[in-house]
Every structure is written in C-alpha cells, then in structure tokens.
C-alpha cells in the first residue's frame, strides 16, 4: 500500500491507513497500548521524511501510495495522544461522552 521507501511501515498499513477520522478513532479505541506504542515507535523517526515525501505531490492529485502514507501520518497524530499523554486509548475521564467528527477536508 505504501511507497517502497516506507516499506518498513507496511505491517501497520492495514490497521492504520484509514480514510476518515471516525475510522481512525475506532481503531484507536479498539487497540491495545502495546499495539499503538509499536506503531508510534516505528513511525515517529520517519514522520518528517514521510510528510516531505507527500509534499512532493499536489495535495489534490497525490498517487495512491502517498495518500496511504498521509493517512498513516493522520493515524500517527491520533495515537500520539494515548502514547504521549494518556497511557490508555481514551482520554481519561471522558467515557461518558463522545465528539463525532462529522466532516473534514479531503484527502
């Protein structure tokens, strides 16, 4: 799914290349901290490079591999909160509520 330069991240692609925030949010809540830590540790050293790779293409005319990579970066963003701050998948003291993203720009 990913550009060959980022082949080492391929094992995470199936779970984390998700097109929308609701899908990424669901993936976060159904993942273990170990799973998210492994994804975070693998992608963090490559994020700057991955963003630069995607920047090579027009935002609205990116090849599939770059779009998948961008979605993987979005998932890095959403798992960074449990990994860096919460030490659990959901925001502490928020299980009684939700906040659904109902629209977002593409891609």
């Amino acid at each position, binding site marked *: 799914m990913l550009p060959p330069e980022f082949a080492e991240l391929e094992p995470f692609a199936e779970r984390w290349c998700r097109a929308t*925030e609701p899908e990424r949010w669901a993936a976060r809540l159904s993942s273990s901290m170990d799973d998210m830590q492994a994804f975070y540790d693998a992608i*963090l050293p490559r994020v700057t490079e991955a963003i630069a790779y995607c920047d090579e293409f027009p*935002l609205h005319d990116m090849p599939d591999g770059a779009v998948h990579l961008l979605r993987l970066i979005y998932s890095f*963003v959403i798992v960074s909160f449990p990994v*860096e701050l919460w030490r659990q998948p959901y925001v502490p003291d928020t299980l009684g509520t939700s*906040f659904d993203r109902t629209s977002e720009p593409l891609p």
Partner: protein
Amino acid sequence: MARYPKPAEGTWTEHYPELGTAPVSYEDSISPEFYELEREAIFKRAWLNVGRVEEIPRTGSYFTKSIAAANASIIVVRGQDGEVRAFHNVCRHRGNRLVWQDVPHEDTSGTCRQFTCKYHGWRYGLDGACTFVQQESEFFDIDKSDYGLVPVHCEVFAGFIFVNFAKEPSQTLREFLGPMLLGVEDYPFDRMTDRYAFRVECRANWKVFSDAFMEFYHAPVVHVGQHPRHLRATITEMGYEAPHYQIDGPHGLVTTAGSLHRVWDMPPENVKPADIVTRSGLFGPWEQSDLGELPPGINPGNVSPWGLSSFQFFPNFAILIWEAGWYNTHQFWPTSYNSLVFEGNVYSLPATSASERVGREMAAVAFKEYSLQDANTLEATQMGLEARVIDRFPLNDQEVLVRNFHKVVGDWVHELAREPVRA
C-alpha cells in the same frame, strides 16, 4: 498578585458594577420551568447563528436546521438572486415537514431547483412561493400566492447566517451584535474554508456547558493533561489569568496572551514529540497563515503579545480567533433543561500541501481531545447542580463572563414577563 493590570475599579467584575460580586444561583440551569421561559424569551427573540454562507455556495443550495429550543425546523437556501433566505420547514397544505431525507427528524442538505413535498407533491420555489398545487381544481377558491412558505427573519454578518424567530425582531442583526462584535467583520472568514466539524449530544444545561467555554480558569486543571507530564504541576499551580475581558450588551470577550501559545520558543523537552514533527498542537499550526492585515477589532484590548480572542455571541455561539491564523466556533443548542447538542468547528485557509494538512489535522485532533474533557466534566457539573444541596456558588474575577451570561439570561426572561400579553 495579578499578572496583568486590571481596570481602575480593581477587578474586571467591578468594572461592570451591575454584575455585583455575590455568589450566584444556578437554579436557572436545573429548572424545567425556567427553560420553558428561556425558549420564549431568548430562542424566539435573539438572533441565532445557523451556519455559514459557504455551506450554500450556489443557487438552490440549501440546508435544514432543527432548533428544538424554538420548536422549529428551518430551510436555509440561496435563491436565484443569490440572496440567502430562511423558511419554516413546513408544507402549507397539511403541515408536513417539507425537506428531509430518510429520517424526518434529522437535518439534511443539498441543491435543488424547487422544494417538493413528499406527501401530496406541492411545490415551492427557492423564494418560498408556492408554484404548484397537486390537483388544484379539487380545492375551493385556492390562490397559490396565499400559500408561500412561512419566512423566518434572516440576515448575514461576515458570512455567518443568523435567523430570528420573532414576528418582528426588536433589533436588526447589526444593532443586536453591537460595536464589539461588529469589529470582527473584516476578518477573512470567507477565505477559511477548510473545515473540521464535530457534534455531540450531552446531558447538561446549555448554559452550564457554555460557561466552560467563556472562562479559562478551568484550563490548567481540566486540560493540564494535554501537556507533558513534568510540566503539569507547575501549570496547575500557575493558574490562569486573562489580560483582557470586555462586555458589550449581552455579548462578551476574553483575550489570552500570546506568550502561552509560543510553543516553538520552548525547550524541546517541554513539547510533545508529535507536536515537533507535525509543527502543530493544542494552539494550532506553528506556521502563521498569511491573512494580510487583520482588523483591530479582533484584539480590542490591544493585548501584546496577542494569543486568542474568544468572542461570545449571545445567546449560544462563540468565535475563537487564534494568533496563528485560524479560528474555531462553539455552539450550544438546548434540547431540554438538562441536555444540549454541542457543535464545534475548526476553520483555516485551504491547505496547499500535505504538511499544512497534517498541521491542521493535529489541531483538529487536539480540539477533540480537550472538548471531550469539557463535555464529560460538564455532565458531572449538571448532576452536582441537580442534587440541589447548594443554592449559591461563588464566581471569581476570571469568571466575569459567566456571571454576565447568567445575568443577561435572567434579564431577558424577566423582560418577557414584563411584556403585555398579546391578544
């Protein structure tokens, strides 16, 4: 010891002497009877923001909006002449909800040439005129020109669409907004079309919910977890002070200082690794968007360095304009005395590259993380208030807008009670 100068009276609260300084009652937030009065006095009289003009870009673009507090559903549509109009979403024939898709009680949007009722096929133009009556000759002396959609007063300010359910609003939208809010008019809202929209139904009174979005006193406590672990105790201990508050009529403003937001000037160990690689975070993307010269009205307190201005549009809408060149909105729609729909939007210039998009994604994710903290806490507040074991609550000087908000709500409700009953 105050970090920022306060007005000559000594405090922001005493600068507005009509507010007083006494502990306040929250009976207005736990009483079903009071909510019924608010519906009449506020939601059927005040100008209410229902969206932005970019949501209906072309002739025939429309959206519907349910406003439970006014017992209404409206259609907002752009006409042939480019004008934005609002109508009650009710067919003139037998009262069917006119525009809906699949589920009658859910809002919808789209583009059309005319509205056709799903029940008996009556049709209406984009200007609300009735254009077709099914089997018209079966009716008795019917004149279609008497059966247009019922209009709702609708005016646009800075691209924000406002409606008013009064038969004749006592003020125009601009009179209602007043000088402080009119001061944001020239901000380039129209260019900021990248939008992340959020929504949730919560079990709290709409004012209890709004309260948390007009003070930052809670931020170093409720939201301290958003910062790296080793900084948290210091952040909470420092507390929060705003350099500027302002009240203009029913509306309010709180401005925060930019020094808090300049994450890029901080030592890297004090910044989350994900913020460093995405160059974004809690206060938005680090790269300033080029918006050109901004109107002085977005920082009427001349706070320098300026960080954020949070404009509270009475009764249920807020615009937060951030130093880095983006803005977000909060909106609070009551559905009963102890429930509401909370809507949040994050707006910025359209991203032109993947790196800009990633920065905006980080800001939108952070917005959700802290909004969840607010939403859950406010359900807990509602439960505490409804226990009715306490009837007076002390508010401090950083909660001056909260104090003003509840006072204004009370004033509007009492104003209605003084009006002569209409025959």
